[in-house]
Each structure stands twice: as C-alpha cells, then as structure tokens.
C-alpha cells in the first residue's frame, strides 16, 4: 500500500477520480464564465455611455475582485450553502470585472467617427451595437474573457474547499498529506487547462476583424457546450458528511472509517475553515474536526465517540530539551503543575474565548490560572536563567505557553521569553533541535505521525492506545533527539467526527458505530 508510485502510475490508478475532477473543474469554470459573460457583456455595454453608472459598476466589480477568494467562498455559504452553487457564484463574481471592464473599454474605444457615419447612413441603435460596436470591441472583450478564464481555472481549485469538487481536491489533499504525486495530479491538469483554454481563446482573438462576426456566435455556443459536461452534482441524502482533503486521504481518517467501521456515508470535500459553519447551518451533518476546536462550542456541535479507536490520540504535553531540564531541575516540577488540569471541554471553552469572543490569549490564560488557584506572582530576586518558549500559530498554543510562562516565573527564579508564531510543526521542531527555543507544547499524535513516521508494522499495535503512543514517542524522542515529553496536560485534541447536538440527540447517535447503524438502517428502508 505504501510502496512508491510514480506520478504516471498514480494518475492512472486514480484516473476515474481525475476525470471526474477535471470535468467538474471545466464545468465550474465554463458555467461561471458563461454567466459572467451573459451578465458582464450587457452591463459593460449599458455603462459605456453612462459615466456615473460606469464609475459605480466598475467600482463594485473592482471591490469584489479584491476579496480574497477563500473569504468570498466563505461569504457564499450562509447565502447559498456549500457545493457547486456557491462556487459558481463566487467564480462568477471574480470573472465579472475583467468582462465588464474590457467590454466597457472596448465599446468606448470604438472610433466615434465610425459610429457617427453608421448613424449618418441610417443605422439604428441596435444595428450599430451589433454590426459595428460589438465586432469592433470584440478583440478587447475577448482579452477580458481570456483573463477571466485564467483567473477562474485558478480560483476553481478552491472550490474543493466548499464541496464543489474540481482539481483542488487532489491539490489540497496532496498538500495536507504531503503527497507530491497527488498535488501534481491536480496541479498539472489545472495548469494545462488554463493554458489550453487561454490558447483556444487566443485563436479567436487573433481572427481578423471580419471573422469577429462569427466569433460573436461561436463563443457562446462553445461555452455552453463545455458547461454541459458538468451536471451540477447535488445530493438528496439524509446525512451528508463533509471532510477535509487531508482527512479523506488518511488511514486514521476516512479510509479507516470505511475499513474499520464499514461506514457508508455520502461525502463531499471541504475546507476546515468553512466546515464547522456549514454543519451549523444544516448544509452538512457530519464533519471531521479537532476535538478541542473552539468552534465546537460556538456552533453547538458534539463529537462522536470513537468506539473502535481509529483516531490516534493527540494528547498535548510540553516537549522540552533534556539539557535544559538537567541544567534547571526546578523547571520540570513547575511545568508538571498543569498536568491533568485541562480536559477536552475546558480546552474547547478556552479556545472558544480566544477564537470567538476575541479575548487575548494572555487574559484567558490568566483568568484560568486565577480561577484554578495556580497563579503566583513572578518571583523577584536574581534570575537563574532564561527559558525560551515557542508555539505554533493557533489559539490553543498561545494559551498554553502563556500558562507555562506564569507557572515558570511564579514557581522558579527563571525568566521566560516567548517566541510565538513559529508556523507549523516542522518549524517548531527544528527550532527546538537547533537550540533556538527550549520547549513548546506538542501533541503525541503529531510527534508520532509527522515527526517519527514509523512503518505500518510498528504503528498498528500502538495507534489506538493513549499510553502506548505516549511511551513510544517519549522513548524515541529521547533516543533520537534528546528531547523529553513531560506529563500530558490532559486534553486530547484528536480527530473526531462531529454532528449538531440537536440532530445527534434526536437520532440518538453517540458513537461512530451508532452513526454506522443508523445509516445502514436508513439504506435498508430505501
């Protein structure tokens, strides 16, 4: 299963998926483009002789263009849900500016002497529009359509974030899984598609002015043809799951759900940035999230118990350089104070305060320490040394290192400097081994799967067990890197399946097996 495939073999093996994704990609691009042309062209023509309207329309389209694509997709969810519809709407909005602007520029750029002579010969407004202005503006309009096409092929990869499919599924899955073949299997066809469509349109654009009249007819026909490849997928399933591209490709994710639980559920691929909200708004019923995410509380979701333990434990614990522990023996007892104090729901609550109530991590940490009676004033007197704390860039880690700072400075004469925002796991870990920081909070599952990456044989017997995983990473990190895992803090930020509380209660689903049973009963009834 893990033997190296080359890119060709991968694409061949996944050719079915690849074809689906490519068709969806072309479909998304062309449908949105078609609508953008259908709306943008008349709009561009309409504003061509209206200065104020032009200023306004171009301004609005320009503002739309500056909205980051993922944010625009996010805005679409409350309005249009997830799937093809919001993706097409967002792509349409992106394609609008180049189409309107170039139509406007093209039409206003037509030599007024020519339109005047057309009027002088007795052509009416519409005859002038269709026989003179549009054909003469066509090269400029086509340039706009080309720009819009290339933009759309690119942005359409993001459609995978909101369950609309397309080549982004491979690209983002590949990035999340660090699978180069998968990234390329999505990125290369996407690039080729952009080049191909651009080239096709450039042929139209180069056609001389006379042929412009034919181009005006052929282009919409072609667009409709391309669009029709793609029938907007929709699902009428009772229970719909939305999983991140990463989760879809993992053994300790969707693959495990299928093999160990025999879970048979309709799925769409979606980004974790919008997933929770989509679940909250009834667009999705089951999602793959992290157990302590603040959004769990914000959107009133519950996690399903992993009763067959396919998700490895992600217990957080301080990861510290051994030389620092030896040099400052008073350090470890201070750090251990937090052990066992924070469980899943407490951590979720704390994350919620930072992520959703926008409280400062320092304040959340201080309030918590005060509440638990763990806070001590920083000790005075000569300092015994400096401890450098690092953290990855998300709320949970900020909260934790602020707590550790208080514990160290309150219980020892050591001083603390913090180096927050060290990107992801890799950056933190490298900073630690390169002696740039002394400790940071890490998760056992991450240590196991991202850093140690043991083979399947080693992995299988330990993966579901909290203690075994902890013992394994503790031993290996000590042997290989001279790093110590201290006692776990208590909460487990593992993968989890989540549902809306109300739905889970009414369907009496508490565990993943409950979900599985519910789904197979449903299927029997059909």
């Amino acid at each position, binding site marked *: 299963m893990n033997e190296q495939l080359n890119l060709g073999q991968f694409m061949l093996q996944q050719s079915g998926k690849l074809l689906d994704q490519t068709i969806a990609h072309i479909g998304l691009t062309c449908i949105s483009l078609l609508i953008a042309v259908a709306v943008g062209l008349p709009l561009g023509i309409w504003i061509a002789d209206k200065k104020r309207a032009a200023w306004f329309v171009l301004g609005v389209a320009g503002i739309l263009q500056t909205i980051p694509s993922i944010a625009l997709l996010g805005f679409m969810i409350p309005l249009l849900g997830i799937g093809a519809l919001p993706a097409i709407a967002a792509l349409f909005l992106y394609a609008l500016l180049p189409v309107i602007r170039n139509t406007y520029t093209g039409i206003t750029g037509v030599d007024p002497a020519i339109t005047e002579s057309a009027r002088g*010969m007795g052509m009416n407004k519409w005859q002038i529009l269709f026989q003179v202005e549009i054909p003469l503006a066509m090269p400029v309009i086509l340039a706009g359509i080309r720009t819009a096409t290339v933009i759309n092929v690119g942005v359409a990869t993001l459609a995978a974030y909101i369950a609309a499919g397309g080549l982004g599924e491979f690209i983002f899955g590949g990035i999340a899984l660090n699978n180069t073949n998968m990234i390329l299997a999505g990125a290369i066809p996407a690039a080729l598609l952009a080049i191909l469509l651009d080239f096709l349109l450039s042929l139209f654009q180069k056609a001389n002015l*006379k042929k412009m009249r034919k181009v005006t007819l052929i282009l919409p026909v072609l667009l409709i043809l391309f669009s029709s490849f793609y029938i907007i997928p929709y699902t009428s399933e009772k229970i719909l799951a939305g999983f991140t591209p990463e989760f879809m490709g993992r053994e300790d994710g969707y693959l495990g759900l299928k093999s160990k639980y025999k879970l048979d559920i309709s799925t769409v691929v979606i980004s974790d940035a919008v997933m929770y909200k989509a679940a909250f708004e009834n667009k999705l019923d089951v999602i793959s999230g992290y157990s302590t995410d603040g959004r769990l509380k914000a959107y009133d979701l519950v996690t399903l118990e992993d009763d067959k333990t396919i998700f490895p434990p992600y217990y957080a614990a301080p990861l510290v350089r051994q030389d620092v522990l030896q040099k400052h023996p008073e350090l470890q007892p201070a750090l251990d104070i937090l052990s066992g104090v924070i469980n899943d729901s407490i951590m979720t609550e704390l994350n919620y305060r930072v992520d959703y109530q926008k409280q400062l991590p320092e304040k959340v940490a201080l309030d918590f320490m005060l509440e638990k009676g763990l806070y001590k004033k920083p000790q005075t007197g000569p300092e015994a040394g400096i401890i450098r704390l690092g953290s990855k860039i998300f709320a949970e880690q900020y909260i934790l290192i602020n707590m550790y700072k208080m514990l160290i400075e309150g219980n020892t004469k050591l001083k603390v400097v913090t180096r927050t925002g060290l990107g992801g796991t890799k950056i933190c870990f490298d900073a630690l081994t390169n002696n740039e920081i002394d400790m940071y909070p890490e998760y056992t599952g991450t240590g196991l799967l991202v850093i140690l990456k043991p083979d399947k044989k080693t992995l299988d017997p330990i993966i579901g067990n909290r203690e075994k995983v902890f013992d394994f990473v503790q031993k290996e990190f000590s042997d290989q890197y001279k790093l110590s895992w201290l006692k776990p803090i208590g909460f487990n930020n593992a993968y989890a399946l989540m549902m809306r509380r109300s739905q889970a209660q009414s369907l009496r689903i508490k565990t993943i097996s409950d979900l599985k049973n519910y789904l197979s009963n449903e299927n029997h009834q059909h």
Partner: protein
Amino acid sequence: MIIARNVSKEFNGIKAVNNISFEVKEGQTLVFLGTSGCGKTTTLKILNRLIEPSDGEITINGKNILSLQPEILRRSIGYVSQNNGLFPHYTVAENIAIVPNLLKWDKVRTSERSNILLDQLKLPVTEYANKYPDELSGGQKQRVALARALVSDPPVLLMDEPFGALDPITRANVRKEFLELPELKSKTIVLVTHDVQEAFELGDQICLMDKGIIVQTGSPEELIFKPINEFTRNFFSHQRLQLELGALKFSSIWESLTDASSSSKPSLNSNQSLWEGMEMLSEKNEETLVVRNSEDNSYKEVSIQTIQSVYLENKRNR
C-alpha cells in the same frame, strides 16, 4: 431643394450656429466655407439630424425633417463624414452595401449598382471589392466613402471636407474626377470645406461662415468681386488674383474678346475661367489660343495680354 430658416444650435449655452438661413436649389451645390470651428460641420449634421437644432426650421424637398424618423431621413441622404468613417471590419463591397441592406435591396441589385459606382470611381471591382479599408490609400478610401454615399442614389448628398485628408495634388485630381462624375450632375449637394480653391471650383453657391453666422452667400464671382464687408474681402486676400481670374468665365467677358476665324481649332470653351486660360497658355507655351462658345458656336482669340486688359477693365467697371 433644401430650405433652412433661422437655424441655431447651442452647445452648453454657446451658439455654434447662430440663426442662419440658406437655400440649395435642386441639382445645385452649396459650399459652406470658413475657418476651423466656425460651425460648418454642425450646420451640415443638422441637415441629417446627427445634431438636433436648438431652433429653426428645415425642409428637404418640401418635407420638414423634424417630422421624419431620423433613421428614415438619413437613409435618403448620402453622407460622407469628415474622416470617411468606413467600417474597418467590412470589405469595400460590404461597406458600400450598408445602405442597400438597410433598404432591404436584394443582393443582385446591390452588387450591380456598386459595381457601376466602383467603375465610375476607377476602383476595379475585381481588385478592390474584397479589400479592407486599411489596405487602401487615402484617396481610394475617400472614393469608397463617396461610392457608399451614392449607392442608393439619394437625391441629396452631404459631404464634410471629403478631400480633407489628401495631399494637394491628389486632392486636385480627385476633385476633378468628382466634377466629372455623371452621378453627381443631378444631385443637390451640400459640401463643407475650409479650402477656398475647392469652394470656388465646386460651389454654385458659397456660404462664407464665421463664428456661427453666415457672413455672405453668393456665387464665387459675387463673393470675390462684391464682398459686403472687410471680413469677406480679407478672407480671400491671399489668393485674390487667382480667385478673381478663376471666378471670371470667358462667357462673361465674351464681348471684349477679338474674333477668331471659325476654321481654327479651339482648345478652350467659354465656360472655363480666365485662370484656366492662363494655365493652358503657359502649359502649351503658345502666344494665343482659341475659345469656343458652345451656345452660339462662335470663336474668339485670347492671349496673356488680352486676359490682363480684360481683367483690369472688368475690375474697374465693378
């Protein structure tokens, strides 16, 4: 027959055309002459309602133009705009076929008619019909624009500096061809120019314009010999001698010329101007030439000396 009464046009409160009246008789050519910005183009465009007048009344062949739908009106008036206005995405043939198509002529009729015109305008059909405007010279474009305006045989033709973009030599040649075109003989033509020479050659009547008003209307001869004010006089002062000689036809000084024998071979006719006589004399390097009067078939003799003395005498008498 075009009659304009008290026509004005304001642009943002400024009168580009200020209360002008004029008439063009059937089959005649009226030239609007004046410096840049005096309102010539504006006046012309009012006639086919490319510009709506602020005030005044215009009738063409008895119909008030404001009572007609503009598109219908324009299809019955040939129009050659200031910079030819050919459609760059249409071939010569397609450009010429625009008005016939608007009038829903059938294809055969259109192509027969445009072939005749291209022939008359010395643009061989086989060579030029399928060319695009940017493959033509300036003079050729101008002729296509003319053919396009003439194709539906409109009784009225409006032309805005039709030869404006051409060099002086081509311009003189195209103008000559233009004068000889049988198509144009019966047309009522309104032509705009700032070229005095052109106005004198082409106009039966000339309206000299300045700052939106018509300073003086009259035949070339009247304008040059009977200027009503300083403006008119000064306007022609640079080319006075040439214009005066050009405005005088042999027919109008017939009596002062000496008879020639009726057996001699004439090289001029009495409708030509003294200027043309001078040109011919120096071109042929002859002492004398014979002029024929086409009305009574009499013959007279002219030389540089006779032209000079007749001209001076004529001036003194006015």
